[in-house]
């Protein structure tokens, strides 16, 4: 019997729905909690009286965030980073994936180059060499330090190259008969057929750019150049309780102020949440297309 037309008995259907609804609630709860915290009074938040509904409703935290120039500045840097970084990543990923997807008789050095890239996934030079390379190339403290060091995400290249390989080569041959060169084949044949995978990879890199914080902290020389997540990291990190002294009182004060933290975290979530609905429908099929059949 074809499982697709098999109708679940009422009971099992109910069970399925309940379990899935619970799972969804599990995912939703933290977001609602953060949202409720951000609209609650600091005292209510500090004493843990807030669950998913604001207690002692106030807009103070959002006022604080809006009055805080550091937040706005790093928000813009993060936006720029996504807007610049994502196209750079995508262009380079496509340009690397295409030759690697060619058969060996058409591109003799393919295996060498494939390993050349894959090795960087398997082995990393370590933090200090990474830093030194970036420093020697003069990128430290520059916006491009957030873009260029990770410009070729090799995992995505493999995903895309595999996807290209699944496209019947008859299509390319037909195009070639009509006089198409490599560029035409890539842009007119392969890319339009790989939209699901492209959407997936775009989402990956956009999210990765939005979420990364470590490189900002290490590569920028002053806090006013931090992207949003680096800035947030400095606000939400917990100090070691054994090292606390009365000099840290102001820091403790900020850290215990959960409402402003929540407001900042929530605002930081919004832009990337807005990307998902547009791309997500390609998401699962994209991964399968690329890697399983390849």
């Amino acid at each position: 019997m074809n499982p697709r037309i098999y109708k679940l008995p009422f009971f099992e259907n109910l069970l399925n729905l309940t379990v899935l609804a619970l799972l969804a609630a599990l995912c939703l709860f933290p977001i609602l909690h953060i949202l409720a915290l951000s609209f609650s009074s600091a005292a209510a938040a500090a004493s843990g009286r807030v669950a998913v509904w604001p207690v002692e409703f106030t807009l103070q935290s959002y006022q604080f965030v809006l009055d805080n120039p550091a937040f706005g500045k790093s928000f813009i840097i993060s936006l720029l980073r996504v807007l610049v970084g994502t196209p750079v990543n995508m262009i380079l990923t496509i340009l690397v994936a295409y030759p690697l997807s060619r058969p060996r008789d058409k591109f003799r050095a393919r295996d060498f180059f494939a390993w050349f890239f894959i090795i960087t996934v398997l082995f990393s030079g370590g933090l200090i060499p990474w830093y030194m390379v970036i420093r020697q190339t003069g990128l430290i403290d520059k916006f491009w330090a957030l873009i260029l060091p990770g410009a070729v995400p090799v995992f995505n290249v493999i995903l895309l190259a595999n996807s290209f390989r699944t496209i019947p080569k008859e299509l390319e041959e037909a195009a070639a008969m009509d006089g198409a060169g490599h560029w035409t084949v890539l842009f007119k044949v392969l890319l339009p057929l790989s939209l699901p995978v492209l959407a997936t990879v775009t989402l990956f890199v956009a999210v990765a750019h939005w979420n990364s914080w470590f490189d900002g902290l290490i590569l920028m020389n002053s806090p006013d150049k931090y992207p949003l997540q680096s800035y947030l990291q400095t606000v939400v990190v917990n100090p070691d309780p054994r090292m606390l002294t009365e000099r840290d009182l102001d820091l403790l004060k900020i850290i215990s102020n959960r409402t402003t933290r929540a407001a900042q975290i929530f605002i930081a979530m919004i832009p990337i949440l807005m990307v998902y609905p547009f791309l997500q429908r390609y998401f699962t099929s994209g991964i399968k297309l690329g890697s399983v059949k390849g």
Partner: protein
Amino acid sequence: MKQNTGKRCPSRPAILFLLAALILASCAPKAAEPTPQPSGAAAPAGDVYAGLNLIVPNKYDPPIDMTSVTTVNATVKFLNGDDIHNNIWTRTYRDVLGINLKYQWVVDGSMYEQKLGLSVNSGEIPDMFVVGPSQLLAYQEAGLLADLTSIYAAEASKNTRFILDQDPVALKSATINGKLWGIPLTDGSVTSASVLWVRQDWLDKLNIPAPKTMADVLEISRRFTEDDPDGNGVDDTIGLAATKGIWGAIAGLQGFFNGYHAYPGIWFDQGGKLVYGSVQPEMRSALLALQDMYAKGQLDREFGVKDINQVTETIAKGKCGMEFGVWWNPYHPLNLSQQNDPEAYWAAYPIPSIDDTPARSQYSSAIGSFLVVRAGYEHPEALIRMVNFWTDNIVLTQDDNIRRIFLGDINAPDVVLYKYTPVVLWAPNGTIETGRKVREALAKHDPSGLDLDAQWRYRIIQAYFEQGVKEAWVEVATNGPNGSVPILEGVLGDRGMFNRFYGTPTPAMAAKMPTLETMEAEMITKVIMGEPIEKFDQFVEEWYRLGGTEIVDEVNLWYSKNK
């Protein structure tokens, strides 16, 4: 020149001054309110220093350049137009000392060590910078640091020596192989000692006498848990706060262990040799007591997963009646408890003892970082001059103008100016001295002669007693007559147990101590949560086997040279 009182900076507990402003605004309208300074405007260059009685060392002419690196946390605020590269401190170094201080980079405090490591390892070493103990050792061994021995001897001013000698271990911590490699950033050591904080309003409500022995503490813990001290008819209170990290400045259990004459995590002298507190037999009875308390629901059932923020929440909610913590706990987090329940009052008690021998509160050296100079920098003495400027003019000053300009305006408590410079050495006995002066003034009912900082504290305490301003309890509970600060004087006397090992970690310590500490915290958590006490003996055995023996030998070798 005698300025021997260790002075504290005025603007540190910013909350306190906000509180003071609140109290003065509500209780003594207009009369006592100081005229607000236009704190927003950056001071005009040139006449900032006019009328200030500054002791100025030789100025470099022409000015010299000095590169450095520093931290700026998200909480640091600047006056209008200023930033970390241009502020009162950089201008003063330039205009008064002739030193052009340039920061190569500025980073959040949490990333400083990592970023410094990357910089130094890639050959980008600043002329002057701050290091921690392990970095001091590593960079000294790598030959990256300048020897400051003779420069310190020649250039250090009387006040610099006064501050650095007030803490007997300060200079020793920065000394390797008999030479001085850094200027320790001093602070009060004894301020890390625990006291016992108890909900006094609960004690009064349940008619329980003040705790004098650890047996009293156990009894209070039982009654706080069972007798519904918050009167809501629900069994939802616990006796004692604890966190998953076990130790710490807030809800740290080291104070509890001290009551049993156990000193976890520190080294102390036993028959001429240093021993490590965590593996001594005294730990047993304290662990058993905690185990019993846990079994009876007097500790948080889930303390093993609660971090400091979650414990703060329990305290703020008014669900917890006792905690072992440091003297400033009323400023945070205990103030949150009073904010949610106006009647809440936490009182400080010295650590009680389980027997007739008075308990001793453990504390460690406050020296955690050092100012160092790059080997090969042409003007290593410039660092000493910056330190002299600070010690001669700022930290011991009684002049409120100097404080306003260099440390922060009392009317703009969120702008803390000393955060702009790495050269900050606090007088080791500052907290205690200020507290003593405030208490003397309270006894005489006369605040005259107090500097602005002490005066504010005095007024806040007065507001509590005379106008009944409940929020002012935080100052009463610290600098008041029965507060936590007078307890520290006892700790500085014979009621304290000082960690006799200080300075740079030994090699085995650097390599193995983190693992051993994790092991210890796990063992303690498990035993408290009900595993047999034999776990402790097992831990002691493993501790020695997994590197402890080596560490003890190294520490005692160090001790024989640094007694």
